[in-house]
């Protein structure tokens, strides 16, 4: 029997390491193996403990605490698992994984990310071997073309085209770069792949390096992902020791060196030319294109940049054929896509599905819908470059074209679900706050335009909105979109434009009626005590920092709106739900 604990960053944050540390001494002197795996993707159930027998998953235990280690160890030692019934995953929750189609994530939560042998046992490096011994670089590019694989970082540009351009660019010195600067707040697909299956990334990158003719490769990874860096470092070391990386890989004349460069925190570095600037040790400010990186990239040499998830699909395509990949998806979008499903969702985590499913399938069928019995309001795709999609468009299929038509974008895979308590004006303000801080400052429209938009959105949420603000925002959006050099600026208006398009009534309520329909904007909130629900316990009156609440014991209390500072303390402490926000 083998016990495997999910130790991605999320799992560890939820307490997986503590469970491991509690179990380890209890298994000393037994023939039971204790191991780790990466992110299983069911973040809502972490920490997760899997019990395997002869490679088969016997039981999946969820939300395990260190205190339960004793019960688990005893049950496994006695080979009688009935006592673990209460810890087992429910059939409903199982559906979260069973409804997915995993290609990029196929090893995540299955193999030990720190053990090369585990990867090799799962057909690891077989695709590299096939490529190096039986395929020309042109064959590889052709296979990727057949697959229809497109850049998973968000833009959806055909991967084969970029590889081909870099292959055909003049010069012997070429570079391959992996963009692992996952800066979109609300997205963690790439982190999960690196933490859970680092060799998969290395293998995909080596195949790409062979295809374009690069001998040097970099992974540019966010410094906020320390565990990903540690696991990737180990994987590089192990792969080099076994001859999968370095000189004369697998005894052929193909050589490639792979280095990690840790980013230092700048969202704009997800833009490929800014990333190159950062790799060169400079401020990450985008360059004018053309020339494209395929001609002049890192150190002005031909370079190719792809996202982590893109590389994670490559070995599967080589082993199973481009046709098999292209058989999944829609006319314009092939294969699968990984999403990080978060927000007010019942079952949040990593979801990999074939293109062509609808947003409703992902949010309601797989994610289980909104938690806490609230009503769905919108889903945000593509982070600061994307947009909010309303309930009426939930049947939109997941496809690059169809999603762009809504005003949002496919993006890298962040999917943040919002319910009726989320204010859409404040949501737009949140993203503009982000882009204002992350704008590199090179282009005037982006640098100053985002700041003006942020100020306007702030005053609307504070009840100072003026007639004409919506039109002014729209004008600014157009100016920034057309006046910015890079993707950050060009897409920064999207969160504002989509919220105006689909939730204009919320903007109007803020501006004209000084009211926040979602009840989120503090300045526009009015706290009142429901006389029928109030028991007169006096708790709220005692807690109110400005003595705005009055009333006799056991008599309904009342809030003096003139004194109220809208801190919400009364609502937090009330045990009868008598304090209402209007």
């Amino acid at each position, binding site marked *: 029997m083998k016990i495997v604990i999910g130790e991605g*960053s*999320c799992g*560890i*944050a*939820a307490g997986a390491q503590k469970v491991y540390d509690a179990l380890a001494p209890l298994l000393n002197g037994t023939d039971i193996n204790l191991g780790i795996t990466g992110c299983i993707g069911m*973040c*809502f159930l*972490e920490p997760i403990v899997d019990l395997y027998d002869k490679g088969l998953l016997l039981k999946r235990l969820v939300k395990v605490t260190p205190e339960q280690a004793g019960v688990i160890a005893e049950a496994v030692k006695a080979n009688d698992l009935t006592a673990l019934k209460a810890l087992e995953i429910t059939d409903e929750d199982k559906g979260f994984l069973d409804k997915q189609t995993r290609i990029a994530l196929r090893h995540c939560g299955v193999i030990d990310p720190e053990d090369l042998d585990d990867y090799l046992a799962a057909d690891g490096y077989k695709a590299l071997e096939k490529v190096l011994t039986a395929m020309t670089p042109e064959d590889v590019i052709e296979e990727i073309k057949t697959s229809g694989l497109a850049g998973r970082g968000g833009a959806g540009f055909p991967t084969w085209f970029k590889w081909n351009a870099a292959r055909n660019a003049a010069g012997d010195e070429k570079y391959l770069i992996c963009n692992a600067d*996952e*800066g*979109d*707040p*609300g*997205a*963690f697909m790439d*982190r999960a792949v690196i933490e859970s299956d680092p060799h998969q990334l290395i293998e995909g990158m080596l195949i790409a390096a062979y295809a374009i003719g690069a001998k040097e490769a970099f992974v540019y990874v*966010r*410094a*906020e*992902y320390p565990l990903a860096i540690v696991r990737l470092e180990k994987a590089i070391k192990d792969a080099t020791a076994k001859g999968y990386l370095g000189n004369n890989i697998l005894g052929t004349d193909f050589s490639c060196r792979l280095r990690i*460069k*840790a*980013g*230092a*925190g*700048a*969202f704009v570095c997800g833009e490929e030319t800014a990333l190159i600037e*950062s*790799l*060169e*040790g*400079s*401020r*990450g400010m985008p360059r004018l294109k053309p020339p494209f990186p395929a001609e002049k990239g890192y*150190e002005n040499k031909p370079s190719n940049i792809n996202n982590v998830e893109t590389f994670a699909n490559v070995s599967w395509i080589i082993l199973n054929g481009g046709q098999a990949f292209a058989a999944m998806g829609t006319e314009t979008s092939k294969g699968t896509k990984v999403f*990080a499903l*978060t*927000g*007010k969702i019942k079952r*949040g*985590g990593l979801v990999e599905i074939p293109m062509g499913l609808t947003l409703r399938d992902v949010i309601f069928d797989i994610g289980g819908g909104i938690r806490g019995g609230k009503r769905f309001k919108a889903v*945000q795709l593509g*982070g600061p470059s994307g947009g909010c999609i309303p309930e009426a468009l939930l049947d939109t299929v997941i496809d690059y074209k169809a999603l762009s038509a809504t005003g949002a974008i496919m993006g890298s895979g*962040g999917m*943040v*679900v*919002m319910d009726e308590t*989320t204010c859409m004006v404040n*949501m737009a303000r*949140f*993203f503009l706050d*982000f882009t204002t801080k*992350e704008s*590199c400052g090179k282009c005037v429209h982006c640098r100053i335009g985002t700041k003006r938009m942020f100020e306007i959105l702030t005053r609307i949420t504070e009840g100072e909105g003026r007639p004409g603000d919506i039109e002014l925002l729209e004008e600014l959006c157009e100016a920034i979109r057309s006046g910015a050099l890079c993707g950050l600026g060009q897409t920064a208006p999207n969160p504002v434009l989509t919220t105006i398009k689909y939730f204009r009534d919320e903007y109007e309520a803020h501006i004209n009626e000084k009211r926040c329909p979602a009840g989120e904007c503090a300045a526009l909130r009015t706290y009142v005590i429901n006389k029928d629900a109030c028991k007169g316990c006096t708790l709220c009156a005692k807690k109110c920092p400005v003595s705005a609440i009055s009333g006799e014991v056991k008599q309904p209390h009342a809030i003096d709106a003139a004194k109220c500072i809208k801190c919400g303390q009364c609502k937090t402490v009330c045990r009868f739900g008598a304090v209402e926000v209007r």
Partner: protein
Amino acid sequence: MCDCGKSDLTLLDGVLAEYASVRGSLITILQKAQEIYGYLPTDVLYRVAEATGSTPAKVMGVATFYTQFRLTPVGKHLIMLCKGTACHVNGADAVEKAICEELKIKDGETSDDGLFSLKTVACLGCCSLSPVMMIDEDTYGSLTPAKAVEIIRTIKGGDAA
């Protein structure tokens, strides 16, 4: 003003010997320097400029561009509070307010006793546990304002013991 002469620059020698002549290593050098000093003192920036053959302006430009770099010292414990989208939707603002009130500081400041610095960050990538914060190396998820304050008080208590 330059605080030149205050830092022990010999601590940098190893890092500079390894990276100063490797092209494109400025960010790596600054990351290592910050690990050594806890922040980037001005005299260290001058030393890095000299050793790498860059202008002080270029080094300063890089140091101020990236959010990871700090030009002032931080407290004993660094609180990184995530303000990513998922955390925002799940109430990170209320958590921030509670932390600020507890420590009597704002984002980017250090408490009077020098124990805690608060820094809000864009995304820690643990969105399913939102709202999330990291204190030093440890991640704390599913926060409420009360829970965040309790965690801070526990750490404070541990330091005093």
